[in-house]
């Protein structure tokens, strides 16, 4: 075992940058641009992707299809990565997807206690609360109190299963379909699927 390998645990060159965060980013961006290591146009394209193109609508499409097509749902639960890839939802931070289904017996909820792992191609960039210390610390130990912070109260017959995303597997919750979902179009159903319902901190909207 390579125990003789040393890392400089206390070397923190970031302290050479301006302390104010916006200036810190600007200084780094300017330096890297002047060295030719970043193309400012590439930064704009990355921002446009996650601000306007990839977001919870993708996940809502997957959920709405699963609600309305039993064969699709079976395939999704068996091999989510290939099923969502076929819909075009593959990419960075979504290379290995598992879909976990909520039922009256089990409510699933997703967290990343060690950092902020999240299924980007299906849900976009995680919200602030998902990345917060409070969520990371509390979701595994007291999920029901955390759900109460979101206004969600589960009946006693429902067990909570919290998925801590400790590997490159990314979890998407398939919420229970609301009453009256049968016969609705995929487009209509999509409007009932919230981001939080696919992380497990919310429920589908009742039409």
């Amino acid at each position, binding site marked *: 075992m390579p125990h003789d390998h040393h890392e400089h645990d206390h070397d923190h060159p970031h302290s050479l940058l301006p302390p104010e965060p916006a200036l810190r980013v600007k200084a780094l961006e300017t330096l*890297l641009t002047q060295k030719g290591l970043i193309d400012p146009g590439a930064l704009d394209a990355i921002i446009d992707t996650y601000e306007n193109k990839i977001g919870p609508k993708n996940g809502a499409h997957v959920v709405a299809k699963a609600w309305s097509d039993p064969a699709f749902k079976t395939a999704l639960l068996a091999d989510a990565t290939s099923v969502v890839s076929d819909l075009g939802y593959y990419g960075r931070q979504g290379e290995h997807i598992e879909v976990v289904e909520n039922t009256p017996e089990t409510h699933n909820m997703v967290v990343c206690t060690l950092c902020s792992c999240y299924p980007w191609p299906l849900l976009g960039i995680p919200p602030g609360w998902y990345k917060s210390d409070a969520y990371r610390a509390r979701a595994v130990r007291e999920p029901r109190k955390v759900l109460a912070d979101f206004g969600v109260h589960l009946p006693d017959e429902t067990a909570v299963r919290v998925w801590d995303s400790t590997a490159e597997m990314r979890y998407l919750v398939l919420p229970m379909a609301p009453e009256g979902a049968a016969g609705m179009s995929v487009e209509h159903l999509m409007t009932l699927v919230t981001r939080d319902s696919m992380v497990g901190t919310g429920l589908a909207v009742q039409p």
Partner: protein
Amino acid sequence: MTRVHDMGGRFGDGPVVPEPETPVFHADWHKRALAVTLAVGGLGQWNLDMSRHSREQLLPQDYTRFSYYEKWMSALADMLVKHGVVSRDELAGGQISPSDLAERALQAGAVPAALAKGGPADRPSSMSPNFAVGSMVRTLKPASNRLMDGGHTRLPAYAAGAVGRVVLYHGTHILPDANAHGFGEAPEPLYAVAFAASELWAAPEHPRDEVVLDAWQSYLEAV
């Protein structure tokens, strides 16, 4: 044995504050921080596990007081120097030298393909799975990197030495404990393991609640 980022189960944090689905970013510099990090990652000078470990290596007081993207920026600056991409002098505002990595810079036109391509973590492995779905397993205790003291690991401290049940087999994946330190990808079987809340917490909220986490084979022993 663990670092400040390993906060699962910690007491003392306040309420979780929900927020609407938009805006995605709450400040212009947040967007720039995300984009700079992804673009520079494309130079291929480090892997994602190194990048995560760099954030975890921030001083505990910095990790705690920095906002999310401040952690990203600070860890990125540290990695740029560690891997020789920029110098301390350049970071401090000194004379800027050209970089021979410039020809690898991510160009605007290549962004959609780069983001869509992703970076799968599954790899063929010579290690065969020791456990099947339904097997009972115990996690290592303490939850530490066994290849490098204080190194990156994905076994949270709250789950150290706990007995659980394998619920999914994910195939063989890169071992972050090795990959974060340049020891190679060392792929191993990866499992989802479910633990009763009562196995992890002194006061579980409900007798049937569970926590599931993904664990590599070397984190586990048969029970």
